[in-house]
C-alpha cells in the first residue's frame, strides 16, 4: 500500500462497510519508505474472498495485492506473554522446559514472573498458551500474522 495517512482506515473501513471480518491485520513500512506492507487474515467462501480481493484492489492506496493462500507460503506471528513463574517453584522449571520445546525466549525475569517471546504460526502460539495453562498467564500480546510466499515468488513492484 501507499504509505499514506488514512490508507489503513480505508482498508478497515471497507471491511466494516461490506460486512467482512478481519481476523488479524499487520502493517508496517517496507524498505521503500513510500510503501507499507500489510498482511490481512480473513475468512470466507470463494466468492466472498474474490469480492474482497476485488474491492481491495479498487482502493487507490492499494498498490498490489496477492492471496497468499493460493500458493505455498509462510505465516509467522510474534507473541509476548507474561506468565506466573515464582522463584524456586516447579512451575518455573516447567515454563523453562516449555519455552525450550517451543523455541521461545525468556526476555524478562522478575521473582514472580517471566516474559516470553515466541514466534511461529498462529497454531503454535495457541498451543503454547494451552500448554502453559490459562490460569498461569498474566498477559499476552500478539502481533497478528505476517505472511510471505515460499520460493521464487515475491510481492514487489
Amino acid at each position, binding site marked *: *500500500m501507499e504509505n499514506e*495517512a*488514512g490508507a489503513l482506515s480505508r482498508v478497515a473501513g471497507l471491511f466494516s462497510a461490506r460486512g467482512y471480518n478481519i481476523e488479524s491485520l499487520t502493517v508496517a513500512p517496507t524498505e521503500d519508505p513510500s510503501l507499507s506492507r500489510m498482511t490481512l487474515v480473513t475468512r470466507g467462501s470463494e466468492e466472498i474472498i*474474490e*469480492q474482497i480481493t*476485488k474491492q481491495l484492489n479498487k482502493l*487507490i*492506496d492499494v*498498490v498490489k495485492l496477492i492471496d497468499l493462500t493460493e500458493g505455498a507460503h509462510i505465516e509467522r506471528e510474534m507473541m509476548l506473554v507474561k506468565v506466573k513463574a515464582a522463584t524456586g517453584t516447579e512451575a518455573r522449571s516447567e515454563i523453562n522446559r516449555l519455552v525450550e520445546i517451543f523455541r521461545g525466549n525468556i526476555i524478562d525475569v522478575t521473582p514472580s514472573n517471566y516474559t516470553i517471546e515466541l514466534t511461529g504460526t498462529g497454531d503454535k502460539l495457541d498451543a503454547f498458551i494451552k500448554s502453559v495453562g490459562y490460569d498461569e498467564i498474566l498477559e499476552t500480546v500478539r502481533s497478528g500474522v505476517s505472511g510471505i510466499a515460499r520460493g521464487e515468488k515475491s510481492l514487489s513492484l
Partner: protein
Amino acid sequence: MELTGAEIFIRCLEDEGVKYVFGYPGGAVLHIYDAIYKQDKVEHVLVRHEQAATHAADGYARSSGKPGVVLVTSGPGATNAITGIATAYMDSIPMVVFTGQVPTSLIGNDAFQEVDSVGITRPCVKHNFLVKDVTKLAETIKKAFYVATTGRPGPVVVDIPKDITAEKTEYHYPKRIKMRSYNPVVKGNKRQIQKAVDMMLSAKRPMVYSGGGVILDRGAKPLTDMIRQLGFPITNTLMGLGAYPATDKQFLGMLGMHGTYEANMAMHNCDVLIAIGARFDDRVTGNIEKFCPTAKIIHVDIDPASIAKNVKVDIPIVGGVSNVLKEMLVLLNESGKSPEKKALAEWWKQIEEWRSVDCLKYDTESELIKPQYVVESLYNVTKGNAFVTSDVGQHQMWAAQFYKFDKPYRWINSGGLGTMGFGLPAAMGAQFANPKDTVACITGEGSIQMCIQELSTCLQYGLPLKIVCLNNRFLGMVRQWQEFFYQGRYSMSYMDALPDFVKLAEAYGHIGMRIEKPEDVVPALEEAMGKYKNRLVFMDFVTDQTENVYPMIPAGAGLNEMILV
C-alpha cells in the same frame, strides 16, 4: 512567480477546463472566494444549500459527460454536501468536491466548524485527499480530476485547510499524471470478447440488458449499432435509459421492479443474457435465486468488482464498454455470420405476445389527472427532446416509463441512492450545461420540498426550468407499499399542510400554475414551453391520489412474478 494556494486552486480549475463551480462560501474558504472574485474564467454558481451544490454539479456531469465541481466550506458545509456526494458515488458520477478545512495547526482540536471531512466522506467517495502542503496542491487537484473521470467514475473529495490557501509556491499544473496504484483497464480481453461474440451468434433467445455504464462511457452509439445489426431485443436499466432509442422497436422498455412485462419476461426466459455496463442491482434482479434461470450470462463492465458480485457469469469481460462494444462489432463483421433467423423470429413472436399485454396501460377516461398522462404529455409537448431530471418515488418511475428517451444524457435521476431533493438542483446543473435546451424536473410535492430553496438560485441565474410537480398529496411510493403490504395503514405518508405552490413560485419570482383537470394538462405545458419559455414555471398538477406504479415485482419475487394492473 509564486501564487497563493487560493490562486493556484483557481488556476488548476482553469487549466482543467472547468467552467462552473457550484458552491457556498464560509470561513475556511474565504481566501478561495477572494481569488474567485478577482478572476472571470471560472464562474461560481451560488446555491442556497450545500446539498444542492453537489446535486447541481452532479446534474451538470450527467447531462454533459464532464466532471461536476463543488466548493464548500469546512464543518457543516462539508456535512451538508455528503448526501450529494453519496448520490454521485452510487451512480458513478464524475465529480470533484473541494471542502475547506480549518488551518492545519487546528486540525484535531475541535476547532470552530471542524469536521473530519476525509474520514466522514471515505465510505462514499472513490477517493479523497487532505492537502497538507501547498506545493502538493496542484498535483493533488490533477489527481482528483484524473481519478474522478477515469475507470469507473465517481466523486473525489479534496480537503484544503485554510492556511494552505494562503501559503505561496510556484504554480505548475501537470499535463499528465501517473499513479502506480491506479491503472484502470480500458480494453477488454480479446479472447473473452471473441467467446462472447460466438455465444451471442449461437443464441436462440438472446436478451441485452444495458445500464448506466454505457452512458458514462459514451457507448450509446456502438451499442445501438451492434444491437440493430444483431436484431436482438434490448432493455435498459433505470440508469441506462437513453443508451438505446426508446422509440425503436427492439427496445422493450425498462426492466426491474417497475419494468415492463415484456422486458422482465424476456429476461426471465432468455438463453443468452448480454449485460453491458450494468451491475445486477437488487431492484433489477428481484429474487436472485430466481434470476434468469435458463441463461448463460455475458457481463461487460469496467469495474471487475461489479462482475460476479451478485450473479455468477459465464463470460466476464473487464473493460471500457465503448471499446468492448466496438471490438465486438468488428469481430461480428469479420465473422460474416448472423444470428439464426428462425430462432430469433420465434423469440420475437413470443416477445410481441408479452408486449401485447400493454402493461403500462392506464385509465385515459378518468376525470382526475393521471400522473402517467402528465408525463406522456410532457413527452409530446417537448417532442422527446427535453433533459428530464426527477426526484425519487412514484413520479420517478412514471417518468422512466413514459418519457421515451431516444438519446443519452437526457434522463437524470438518483438511481442508486434514491435521493429525494435531487431533481431541482440537478436540473439547475443540467440547464447550465445545456443553456439552450428545455430542462424539466419531474417531481412530487414531497420531494420538491426537500430542496425548494433552490428556486432562489434559479431566479438569480435566470434558469428557465420547467417543474412538473405530480401532486397527489401523498408520499406516493410509501403510500403504495403501505397499501400493498401494510393493509392500508398510511403511516406518515400523507402530506398535510402543503404550501400553495403557485404562490410559493411567485414569491420566488417565478411563474406558478395549478392544473386540476386533464384537459388543462397539455395547454399548461404548452404555455410553459411557449409563452413562458424563458421563465421558470412551476406546474402543480393535482393528480389522482390512488394511482399506483405498475407493473410491480414484490420483494422476494422473480422477474416473472409481476403484479400487473
